[in-house]
């Protein structure tokens, strides 16, 4: 693999320690996640100070306007898909949306996107899976399980595989799209001569990072809401 010696898009381990007899590494993904979490916390605390100082009479300006715009956008998205039941899910979908947008766009800022690591997207898919089934059991009690046998009991394997496929497909879709962007940009920056590296990759960044990242965020949040709404709507 000598030709790939300059293009580095793999995950590197930076520090190794032992826990209960296993080797655990601090990797590139941990560092990217730490930076993104710090940025999110700074934004959240600034928004909180801004909202506390605001009065309900004046029209919002500047940063407060921006924060209210984001909240309105997410509220409309959730109410559009989930209707009345959506009031309980706005907080989770809002946090997920902001986290995923920041993660997917972090390739523009020199970080290796955390969602290009399957160990980040799989837990997100499993969280969606647990939300779907906990809400389904709370609403339907036993019918949640007997619904797997509708309309014929013979279709149980197909329904079961359809349920198991939900977290797998959600996580693999996000992982594959962001990883392919990371690999392509890593190859372009690693293998082109220096005079082609200034300016021309900007067009590719627009497609792989901005366009693909934003669409995958929207699709992940929308599919989460659609699956949950399937179980809890009448």
């Amino acid at each position, binding site marked *: 693999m000598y030709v790939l010696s300059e293009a580095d898009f*793999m995950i590197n381990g930076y520090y190794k320690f032992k826990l209960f007899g296993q080797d655990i590494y601090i990797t590139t993904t941990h560092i990217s996640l730490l930076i993104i979490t710090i940025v999110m916390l700074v934004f959240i605390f600034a928004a909180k100070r801004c909202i506390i100082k605001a009065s309900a009479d004046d029209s919002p300006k500047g940063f407060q306007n921006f924060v209210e715009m984001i909240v309105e956008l997410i509220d409309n998205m959730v109410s559009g898909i989930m209707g009345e039941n959506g009031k309980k899910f706005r907080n989770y979908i809002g946090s997920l949306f902001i986290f995923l947008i920041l993660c997917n766009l972090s390739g523009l800022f020199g970080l290796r996107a955390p969602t290009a690591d399957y160990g980040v997207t799989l837990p997100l898919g499993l969280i969606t899976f647990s939300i779907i089934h906990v809400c389904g059991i709370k609403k339907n009690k036993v019918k949640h399980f007997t619904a797997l046998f509708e309309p014929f009991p013979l279709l149980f394997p197909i329904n079961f595989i359809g349920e198991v496929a939900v977290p797998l*497909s959600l996580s*693999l*879709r996000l*992982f*594959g*799209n962001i*990883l*392919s962007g990371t*690999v392509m940009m890593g190859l372009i920056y690693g293998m082109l001569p220096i005079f082609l590296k200034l300016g021309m990759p900007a067009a590719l960044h627009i497609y792989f990072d901005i366009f693909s990242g934003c*669409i*995958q965020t*929207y*699709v992940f949040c*929308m*599919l989460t809401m659609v699956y949950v709404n399937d179980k809890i709507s009448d």
Partner: protein
Amino acid sequence: MNNISGADFINAMSAVGAGLAMIAGIGPGIGQGYAAGQAAAAVGRNPGAQSTITSTMLLGQAVAETTGLYGFAVAIILMFVKPFK
């Protein structure tokens, strides 16, 4: 002809497998192109609804891309994770 060592053979076959896995890219290419054609026809029939049609089309294409990405994930695993050492 010299004998090929076992490790080299496994590397070579992993590379061939990665190439074969990317044949899965045909499916989304045809499907998404067909969907884009239907969206263009819909805009032609109803030009006022263009933004709704565009966002519906992009949403459907992002979901339809999934099976192509399964093939990509298998190819990346074969080439870089090399599970068959």
